């Protein structure tokens, strides 16, 4: 059981106080008792001396009366020790008293006292004796005696008084001890309460104890410690919050596995990448949560080799994403606990760019090689003698020229494109009526449209605002799109060109065909250089594979944009958004 400090102090004070009071009480009592005995003795001695002044015969004659006056038993003893007279009856038969100590003492010192058991009276008695003298010497002794029982009540009465005083003092001590203990312990109790609060985690407020002793010092020290602690906690909290912000805010996905390879925590990036709420992941293993074979295998390899692993892994179900996953070991809080950390970095975009680049190189080589091969082949044939036959030679030369022109077109397009990409191509914008440009373009494709048996519809709603565009470039843009529409629409199909005011200060031109359409997945790639949705067919149709790329860049340079919408097998709609012309604008690049 916990004994409170208060009780310890209180009882210690009380014990010391009671002991001191009791000891002093006892001492006083004893002192009073001896003092009282002496006084009674003295009183009896002086009584005896007064009696001794009388002649012995007189004493013997009035022994009863004298004894009553002295309030004691009176015994008259002669020099030889024989009892001459006694106030008590039967005293005459007493034996020789000379050897009694009080008589011996009286003979030697002039008075004697003794406490003895009287066989005559069968009581504890106090005896005093004084010698009877005449001129010559001792003629006898006068002895007075009182039973001690008569003296005791007086002494006891004194004792009772002392005891009462002691009792009062003890009660007083009790109160003092109570007060003192309480007063002294109150700051300690406050200290305890305060430190207790700190232990449960609350470190607000200060300890206010205004005493200048050690307790005050202690309180001040504790305040100091608390202040330091508070600062430390604040710093730690801030650190933690910062880390948490980084952890949840970073675009990389982070996943921590515990020692049993169960997912312990994931950050928000990870949730977004997997499309699964954390509740579906935490506490499960990778294969349970993500059902990804590559990741599971990579983790297995990591566990075998125990060294940081970096791999490219496909993730996601509906929307495939490429992840650069780094698996590394982290130490847990407990000693020897091994955790695993997986960091996912989305490289889908990077991968796409990489593919565009390699595709571009492959395409460019292919596009250049095809006409070159033809040119070289036909030249060789000519050298080997085909030259002799003018008919064949003319045919061959035409083919060579066609291929050379195709090469030339390709180089032109590439130059335009790179010029646009570098921002070197200068545009000369002016206020243009879109209808004029549309008519110009329609005139260019008219022959091919008729040849293919296509129907072209022009829908222009009322008076349209001027657009801000470079005259030649505008034709180039429209021609490219219309050319595609004509190419990919099978005979008997139709094409519609519509122009209408769009939202937000722009003019929309829609070119819709009933052609083969483009698969949904391919649409985002259409602006890439040399990208062809239908790889085999479009090259046969004579395109360079750069048309849409150029349009896209031109539209951007004009401050407009392009969007493509298509349904496979039903047709494609290309929407061009041109900015409107305003007089106060300067030239643009």
């Amino acid at each position: 059981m916990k004994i409170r400090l208060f009780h310890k102090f209180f009882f210690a004070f009380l014990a010391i106080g009671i002991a001191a009071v009791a000891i002093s009480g006892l001492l006083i009592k004893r002192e009073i008792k001896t003092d009282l005995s002496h006084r009674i003795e003295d009183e009896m001695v002086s009584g005896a001396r007064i009696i001794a002044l009388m002649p012995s015969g007189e004493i013997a004659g009035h022994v009863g009366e004298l004894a009553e006056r002295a309030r004691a038993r009176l015994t008259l003893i002669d020099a030889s020790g024989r009892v001459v007279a006694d106030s008590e009856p039967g005293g005459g038969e007493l034996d020789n008293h000379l050897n009694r100590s009080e008589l011996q003492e009286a003979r030697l010192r002039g008075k004697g006292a003794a406490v003895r058991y009287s066989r005559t009276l069968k009581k504890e008695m106090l005896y005093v004796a004084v010698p009877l003298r005449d001129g010559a010497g001792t003629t006898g002794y006068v002895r007075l005696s009182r039973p001690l029982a008569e003296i005791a009540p007086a002494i006891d009465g004194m004792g009772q008084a002392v005891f009462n005083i002691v009792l009062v003092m003890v009660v007083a001590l009790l109160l003092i001890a109570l007060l003192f203990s309480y007063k002294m312990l109150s700051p300690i109790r406050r200290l305890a309460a305060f430190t207790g609060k700190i232990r449960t985690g609350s470190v607000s407020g200060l300890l206010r104890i205004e005493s200048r002793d050690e307790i005050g010092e202690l309180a001040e020290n504790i305040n100091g410690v608390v202040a330091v602690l508070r600062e430390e906690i604040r710093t730690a909290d801030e650190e933690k919050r910062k880390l948490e912000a980084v952890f949840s805010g970073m675009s990389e996905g982070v996943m921590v596995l515990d020692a049993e390879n169960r997912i312990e925590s994931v950050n928000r990036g990870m949730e977004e990448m997997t499309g699964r709420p954390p509740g579906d992941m935490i506490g499960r293993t990778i294969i349970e949560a993500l059902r990804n074979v590559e990741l599971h295998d990579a983790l297995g390899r990591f566990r075998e080799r125990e060294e940081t692993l970096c791999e490219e892994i496909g993730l996601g179900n509906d929307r495939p994403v490429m992840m650069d996953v780094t698996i590394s070991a982290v130490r847990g809080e407990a000693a020897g606990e091994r955790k695993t950390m997986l960091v996912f970095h989305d490289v889908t975009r990077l991968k796409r760019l990489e593919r565009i680049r390699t595709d571009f190189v492959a395409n460019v080589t292919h596009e250049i090689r095809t006409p070159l091969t033809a040119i070289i082949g036909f030249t060789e044939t000519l050298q080997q003698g085909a030259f002799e036959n003018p008919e064949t030679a003319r045919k061959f030369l035409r083919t060579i020229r066609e291929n050379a022109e195709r090469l030339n077109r390709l180089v032109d397009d590439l130059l335009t494109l790179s010029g646009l990409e570098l921002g070197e191509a200068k545009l000369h914008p002016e206020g243009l009526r879109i209808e004029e440009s549309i008519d110009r373009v329609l005139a260019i494709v008219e022959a091919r449209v008729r040849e293919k048996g296509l129907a072209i519809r022009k829908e222009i709603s009322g008076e349209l605002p001027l657009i801000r565009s470079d005259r030649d470039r505008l034709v180039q843009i429209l021609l490219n799109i219309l050319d595609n529409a004509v190419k990919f629409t099978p005979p008997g199909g139709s094409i519609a060109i519509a122009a209408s005011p769009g939202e937000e200060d722009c003019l929309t031109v829609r070119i819709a065909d009933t052609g083969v359409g483009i698969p949904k997945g391919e649409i985002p790639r259409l602006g890439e250089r040399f990208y062809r949705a239908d790889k085999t067919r479009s090259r046969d149709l004579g395109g360079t594979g750069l048309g849409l790329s150029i349009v896209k860049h031109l539209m951007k340079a004009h401050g407009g944009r392009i969007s493509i919408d298509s349904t496979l097998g039903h047709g494609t709609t290309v929407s061009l958004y041109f900015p409107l012309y305003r007089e106060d604008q300067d030239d643009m690049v």
Partner: protein
Amino acid sequence: MEEKKHTSREYERELQEIREGLLYIGALTERALERGAQALVERDSALAREIVREDEQIDRLDVDLEEKCIRLLALRQPAARDLRFITTAVKITGHLERIGDMAANIAEKVLILNELPQIKPYVDLPRMVSISRGMIRKSLDAMVQENVELAKQVREEDTIIDQLNDQVFRELLTFMMEDPRKIQVCLYVMQISKSLERIADHAEGIADMVIYMVTGKSVRHKPASVEQG
């Protein structure tokens, strides 16, 4: 006491191994299916060959897992829930193995189709692949989460696949009637569609087993609508 605790931990580990093994096979079949669709649409014969090769791995894992289950049954004599889980696992791995076979079948058909001219872009088949793949995923998710609702959803989705299969069949029929030269291609495409339809059936089978595993009630050979009531 220590010994007993150790044994039960070991037992837990073995159960977990079975669970993970099952999911691993599931993930492999899902991937095979996804790649099958890719090989079909992109006419990628190398990918198709890889799928055929990978099916052997699925078969091997299936045999291993079954053996593990039987050993566990014999040595540990599990009861109640665990017993249901293990017997269910044996059944599910069987379904998954069949799905793997179907995916390999599809890949083999893709290999042949890639040698023939394509008659039209694939629209319905990729949809069927994505739905049936979703069904496998959902049925396994239902197993992990012990989620009966999700398993019931899988049962309902099977009807969509059946409808799509019918649609593909009708469409191909018109192609074949139009031009007898297209019959060969159409037949192969039809087989692929049929395989996908059966994959969906197997996914439904897995979902049924999950419902049995969680509730202890068998819903097999009962239509989804009846079960709903």
